[in-house]
């Protein structure tokens, strides 16, 4: 039997974050800071992205809530509750964008910023989905194209 130490689930989580930290550190060490670009540009992006992602994911989960309701003889209560969560997200976004130029990323109006946020987040989610599919595809390709782990001789012996 192969006796090797396996990485834990924590290492997998670190592996998810490590490349981002490494890219930031390497870029900062090689090129220094970017002129006229800093936390003032990054903060609105994080806030807009979080608010829009909340609305989009809540809307998606609202759709799932319908199936949950269907399995529970169609009670409308959870659908209404999730609808309220979506409304809270939309109202919070409008409220924060209305507080002045804080969350307006070069867009002239609240409506323009809202539309830009949705389009921006959809494109980001498409990019995430494509990379997820490519990773899964590579994983399955690597597994199916490696020699089978089933020992045919022992398998046949067990069957007898």
């Amino acid at each position, binding site marked *: 039997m192969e006796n090797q130490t396996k990485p834990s689930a924590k290492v997998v989580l670190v592996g998810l974050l490590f490349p981002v930290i490494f890219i930031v550190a390497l870029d900062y060490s090689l*090129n220094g800071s970017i002129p006229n*670009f800093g936390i003032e540009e990054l903060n609105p992006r*994080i806030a807009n992205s979080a608010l829009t992602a909340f609305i989009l994911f809540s809307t998606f989960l609202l759709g799932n809530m319908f199936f949950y309701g269907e399995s529970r003889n169609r009670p409308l*209560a959870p659908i209404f509750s999730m609808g309220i969560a979506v409304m809270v997200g939309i109202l919070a976004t409008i409220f924060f964008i209305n507080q002045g130029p804080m969350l307006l990323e070069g867009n002239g109006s609240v409506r323009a910023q809202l539309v830009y946020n949705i*389009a921006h987040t959809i494109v980001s989610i498409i990019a*995430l989905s494509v990379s997820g599919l490519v*990773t899964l*595809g590579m994983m399955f390709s*690597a597994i199916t194209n490696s020699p089978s782990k089933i020992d045919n001789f022992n398998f046949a012996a067990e069957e007898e």
Partner: protein
Amino acid sequence: MDEVLKAAVFFWLPFALVPFGVWVAQIKSAKITDKLGYLVAVVGGILVLASPWTVPESPSSAVGQLIGFIVGPVILILFGLFNIAYSGNVPVGRLSTRDRYFGLLSFILGIIWLSLMHWWELTPVVDGGEINPYWLVFLPNLLLSLTCLAMAGGLAMIAFGDSRTNESKYLFSASALSFTFIICAMNFDSPKLEAISFREYVWLSIADLIGILIGAVLAILSFALVIFIYEKSIPSPESIDAPNAEELAHVSEVITQNIGGDE
């Protein structure tokens, strides 16, 4: 027609039809909704792809243009991976060795096509010669997430799999290649984009991914909270009497009919 209304009718409505159609197709209570749902989703998708022609003045149509540009290489890559995966050790529906090489060729062509969209003249540009603003969101997000997911996927194969060290090397290689692409693009100008601009978009993309993570976690938490509160409000089911002799005999008969096999 008013520009805003035109954008709503020719871009946002069709865009909303895609997830709506997929959602309708999942409803099991009526059979007709299955085909109707997919039809609605396909029509919505076609209208989104046509948006650069139907609503060229709307900035949102740049999303439709971006999807049109990336659909080719993405299909090649995914089709390639599908062929490679199903030409290996799969119990049913195994493809031939020729399909594996064809898949490998498709995958490599897709990757080269996507790379040339940054390093050559294939970059999607909107009217006026400027780079499609959503391409500058898509590419850094794709590369960053691929670097992270492939790295985590490789580690997960070792952590949760049984002797999968050799297979995990493919994922580590993909992560390293994607990482190298990002670092090169952050340090060398491409024909249409300066390295310093790409650096800005990578940093914004990191901010984007952090925001999406926060938003998604909050949405899932509220979803879980709604279900938790609702389930708690439902009264616990009443206890029923133990089965009587007649019911037990019926159960035994059903079990006898369903166990065993043909001799």
